[in-house]
């Protein structure tokens, strides 16, 4: 973990967390909730980026991990009146287990095969939620805000309806995830993951069991995505099958690519940018998702490295 984390890098990345911490006091209430949402989604993107940007595996199925988190947390609150912390743990655990099981099954696939398997499994997950609609109520969705008890820490109650609670819970999740990612990227494991991304065969011949490393990366990626989902359930209350649909597999890809895959700040920036881009365009037209399409095509043609990726290449080469 001591791998050349230069002061510059640490300052920049921790600075972002501090910036977000301070921002809550100056943002208008509209942007306040938006940023909270963005931070949760950014966590999702960061998780996704570990697999794509740092290990080189393109997945189109991450919605299943996000949904596992949402449903793990949401259903335990809805049916068993779990407290916030237990529900969060349930959500994280669900996605971890799903990631592990899935990973063990598919670990020998890569490239196009891997892509298609992720797509298929996620779709099966989506359909399963609908199939068991009596339990999941996925079609109409559940709102858990009525059932969810405020978080009680050391005597003080923190209701989830309070915007400050939402913001800081999201910030906490984001900060922890961000730090985990930094640590991972600079660790020996991170070095191997990058090597796998660059040339898997070579990495095997250097003595690394690349399958094990890919599995670890996948589980971490799934768990972080699930944590984002679990937090989303707690903060924003709505649990619906849309979160398991292909849309939510494409979003993290979009966010990561816009911001720059294989960078740490990239996914965060990308999430924020695209969130607002879609937000603004939804006010303009019903077909606002067209910006997603245009952005993706534009990225591929002119900006393959995304925002931070291009910045890193041209100017700030010390960025992780």
């Amino acid at each position: 973990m001591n791998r050349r984390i230069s002061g510059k890098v640490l300052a920049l990345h921790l600075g972002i967390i501090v910036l977000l911490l301070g921002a809550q006091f100056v943002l208008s209430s509209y942007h306040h909730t938006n940023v909270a949402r963005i931070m949760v989604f950014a966590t999702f993107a960061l998780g996704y980026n570990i697999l794509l940007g740092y290990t080189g595996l393109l997945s189109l199925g991450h919605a299943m991990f996000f949904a596992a988190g949402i449903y793990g947390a949401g259903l335990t609150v809805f049916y068993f009146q779990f407290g916030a912390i237990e529900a969060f743990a349930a959500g994280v655990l669900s996605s971890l287990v799903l990631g592990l099981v899935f990973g063990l099954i598919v670990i020998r696939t890569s490239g196009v095969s891997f892509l298609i398997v992720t797509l298929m499994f996620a779709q099966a997950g989506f359909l399963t939620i609908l199939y068991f609609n009596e339990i999941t109520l996925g079609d109409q969705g559940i709102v858990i805000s009525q059932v969810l008890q405020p978080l009680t820490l050391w005597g003080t109650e923190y209701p989830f309806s309070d915007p400050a609670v939402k913001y800081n819970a999201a910030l906490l999740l984001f900060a922890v995830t961000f730090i985990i990612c930094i640590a991972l990227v600079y660790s020996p494991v991170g070095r191997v993951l990058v090597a796998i991304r660059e040339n898997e065969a070579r990495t095997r011949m250097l003595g690394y069991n690349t399958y094990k490393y890919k599995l670890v990366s996948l589980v971490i990626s799934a768990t972080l995505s699930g944590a984002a989902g679990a937090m989303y359930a707690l903060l924003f209350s709505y649990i619906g099958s849309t979160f398991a649909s292909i849309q939510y597999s494409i979003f993290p890809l979009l966010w990561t690519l816009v911001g720059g895959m294989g960078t740490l700040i990239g996914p965060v920036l990308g999430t924020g940018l695209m969130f607002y881009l879609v937000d603004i365009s939804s006010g303009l037209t019903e077909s606002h998702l067209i910006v997603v399409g245009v952005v993706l095509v534009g990225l591929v043609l002119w900006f393959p490295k995304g925002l931070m990726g291009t910045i890193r290449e041209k100017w700030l080469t010390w960025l992780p």
Partner: protein
Amino acid sequence: MAAVTLLETSALSKNFGGLQAVQNVELRIPTGEIRAVIGPNGAGKTSLVSLISGRLRPTEGIIHFKGEDVSRLPAWDRVSRGIVYTFQVTSVYANLTCYENVALAVQRRMIGGLLDRLMLDEKRIAQGVDQALSQVGLQEDTHRRAGDLPYGHQRLLEVSMGLALEPELLILDEPTQGLALDEIASFCDLIRAISKRVTVLLIEHNMSVVLELAERITVMDKGMVIAEGTPSEIEQNEEVQRAYLGTDAAA
């Protein structure tokens, strides 16, 4: 004094669909030897060392390393046993710095348990990298992007990565390809120096390098071993001449 056998293959064969790349190869290399494998293109040399290093699974036959049957071991486990392969077509990580390239190898040697995977002393890694790069004379390029190096230097980087893994059997697949004459000379010095600790298996087309370095030579053609012996024996061997001259005449 009998030399200890480091590597031994029995009836080693590899079949690709219909193509018999390696047929019934019996190879025995004692510890500390520098062995060269030569032969015309398509003779099966790379396939043979791929079998030994674990890049390929044998269709038939057994590979013994230090007395252990490693035929079914995956490549990465063979590396930890001490079999290290450097690629014929340069496979350094072009987008990473030389430091990072070698660090991957150095790190491999240092990872023991789970905790090591999370935190390793970067200073120790840096030392290992410096040592490995110095051995091949690339210290100045430590922080250069590997892909920016001239081809010959990339080959040397490959070798230094191999050395950083602390091999017992180092397999070099055409290491002098693309090197200038003076670079070849320093390369030969390097190999001679390391062969005190490391057994070297060398695939080479450059006959002068072979004759200078090799203690024994194995000659292959069409997947089979057609001759084996000291350099002078091989030079005078008629079958070898036929195999080489035969290819020349047909070309």
